[in-house]
């Protein structure tokens, strides 16, 4: 097991280098002018201004040179400076990552809790109407475009009924808690700001429900399948025969065992959530990595684009690794096998 982890960790820098190289190559095909975001459109006609900006932002160097410089800086933990925000990309990412993680984690909880609950219903009433309804509900989340769902949710819950706040992480007028972790829920509590905590939680509800629903389908499908598998085993029949309560059997025996295979989809879900978060963040004005990526792509902010792909790729690799570790830890056979 440890060997696998070490091997994976050793491969990671090479995968990252691959990502950087690929992103750099992609940038070579780029049409459009990144200088727009640096100096503004009007000055593209001003040769002097253009030359000054190119020199300052290193765009006057050749591609191999820029690549070499980037990789060298990357090795020293420097991801460059964003053309658009004029801040170090690393700082930008550090500022936005907690917002995305907070959203993704909440969405994962929603997705997992909802998916498992629906799967229990499905498995218990297999092939009945309830099963089909539960599967449909779970599936709907992953079939509805999240960006449309987000709009509808905002319209219903924020604009029409005003049950929940609109976009953003916190009431705009509220004083944001000092940043310690960057997680609004944690920071407000650390600052002893209960009203702030509730406000932050209320802001999280809609985006995390929308995002969470989009992974419910995968979770439910997986858990249902493995629960049915487990429910068919002899020991369940035994437990039932012994007169164990229905719910008890379901939760204690079937669900607990069914969760292990469900772990394998964690990494897979992560990719889904990142995809979804890009769109959900755009709609909910969530100042996270996703909306940063969209803006970076729009303005051809290469350092930011590369930075985001590196963080995204890293996140994906780590999620995969954690999944495997968790899976192996939960399943002794895996531990032996690897």
């Amino acid at each position, binding site marked *: 097991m440890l060997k696998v982890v070490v091997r994976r960790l050793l491969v990671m820098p090479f995968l990252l280098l691959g990502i950087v190289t690929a992103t750099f190559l992609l940038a070579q095909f780029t049409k459009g002018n990144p200088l727009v975001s640096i100096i503004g459109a009007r000055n593209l006609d001003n040769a002097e201004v253009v030359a000054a900006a190119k020199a300052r932002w290193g765009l006057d160097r050749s591609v191999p040179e820029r690549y070499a410089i980037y990789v060298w800086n990357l090795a020293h933990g420097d991801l460059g400076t964003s053309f658009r925000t004029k801040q170090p990309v690393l700082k930008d990412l550090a500022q936005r990552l907690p917002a995305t993680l907070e959203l993704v984690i909440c969405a994962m909880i929603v997705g997992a809790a909802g998916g498992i609950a629906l799967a229990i219903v499905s498995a218990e009433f297999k092939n009945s*109407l309830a099963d089909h309804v539960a599967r449909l509900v779970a599936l709907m989340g992953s079939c*509805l*475009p999240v960006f449309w769902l987000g709009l509808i949710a905002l319209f219903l819950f924020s604009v029409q009924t005003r049950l929940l706040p609109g976009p953003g992480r916190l009431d705009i007028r509220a004083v944001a808690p000092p940043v310690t972790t960057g997680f609004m829920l944690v920071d407000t509590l650390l600052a002893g700001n209960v009203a702030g905590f509730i406000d932050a939680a209320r802001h999280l509800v809609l985006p995390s429900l929308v995002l969470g629903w989009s992974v419910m389908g995968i979770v439910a499908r997986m858990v249902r399948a493995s629960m049915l598998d487990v429910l068919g085993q002899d020991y369940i029949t035994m437990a039932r025969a012994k007169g164990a309560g229905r719910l008890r059997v379901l939760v204690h025996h079937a669900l607990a065992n069914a969760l292990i295979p469900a772990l394998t989809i964690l990494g897979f879900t992560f990719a889904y959530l990142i*995809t979804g978060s890009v769109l959900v963040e*755009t709609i909910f004005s969530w100042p996270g990595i996703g909306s940063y990526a969209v803006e970076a792509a729009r303005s051809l902010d290469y350092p930011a684009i590369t930075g985001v792909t590196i963080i995204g790729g890293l996140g994906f690799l780590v999620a995969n690794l954690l999944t495997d570790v968790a899976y192996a830890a939960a399943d002794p056979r895996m531990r032996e096998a690897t």
Partner: protein
Amino acid sequence: MLMGPTTHRDVRPRPRLAGAIGGFFARLGWRQVPVMFAAVVLVALVLVALTIPLWTPYDPIGLAGRRLQPPSAAHWLGTDALGRDVLVRTLFGARYSLPIAAVVLVVAVGIGVTLGALAGFLGGIVDNVLMRLADITLAFPPVLLAMAIAASLGPGLVNTALALIIVWWPIYARLMRAQVLNVKKLDHVDAAIVGGVTPARLLTHHIMPLCWSPIFVNMTMDVGQVILLAAGLSFIGLGAQPPTPEWGQMIAEGASNFYCWWIALGPGMAIFLVSLSSNFLGDGLRDVADPRTRQGG
């Protein structure tokens, strides 16, 4: 996840209410309902996509009536900010979204299956190189990769398709490789080797025919995913561009006229229905392809 045939038989009593409602469908066969629904939706959409220019009441990119009108008898799903008929545009949208999904999947599967089969069959350095390439591609979260590609090559349907192909091929390469590795172990392959067939023929005639069914199941399920991601890219402005009646693009237009909810309704429902159908059909196909799951899941 299933390691062997399950022996579980459903002996529990069905809940009464569900049983009563489900009686009719039970006779029809509950399993068939989603598949039939999916088949009807997809066949209808394909027919519409093929024939709509012949019978459309309005031009999808021309003026059809007053702008921003709610649904009415003349415009069943209302009109958009340019006075175009939303329903007509939604139906025309099938002419973009469905071919994109088809092209992306066919090409991605073509590339993925070829490389995956070679990797699994030849092993060694070929396997290593191809699979590391797949790893790197997979390590990009799909949407970020697609965004980077769209940003680099410029937005548009063709580049969207290209981006999605790059996103999707490694998935099929991995799937195919795993299948080939499994099938290689089977007895009849050994028999064929002993029989002296050439390696190329061994791969194409003895191994690959046994590998296809999970590929097909995945392809079916991915139709919805491709359409969703393509629409997402259009939504953030990196995919299809106006006035193309692409569904994601239309929802983006609807988002900027938020209070006219009907503009996004048509394309939203279209994406939903296609995506749902592709999932239903995929489930159905999997049941056919893999009899072990017929009872379980």
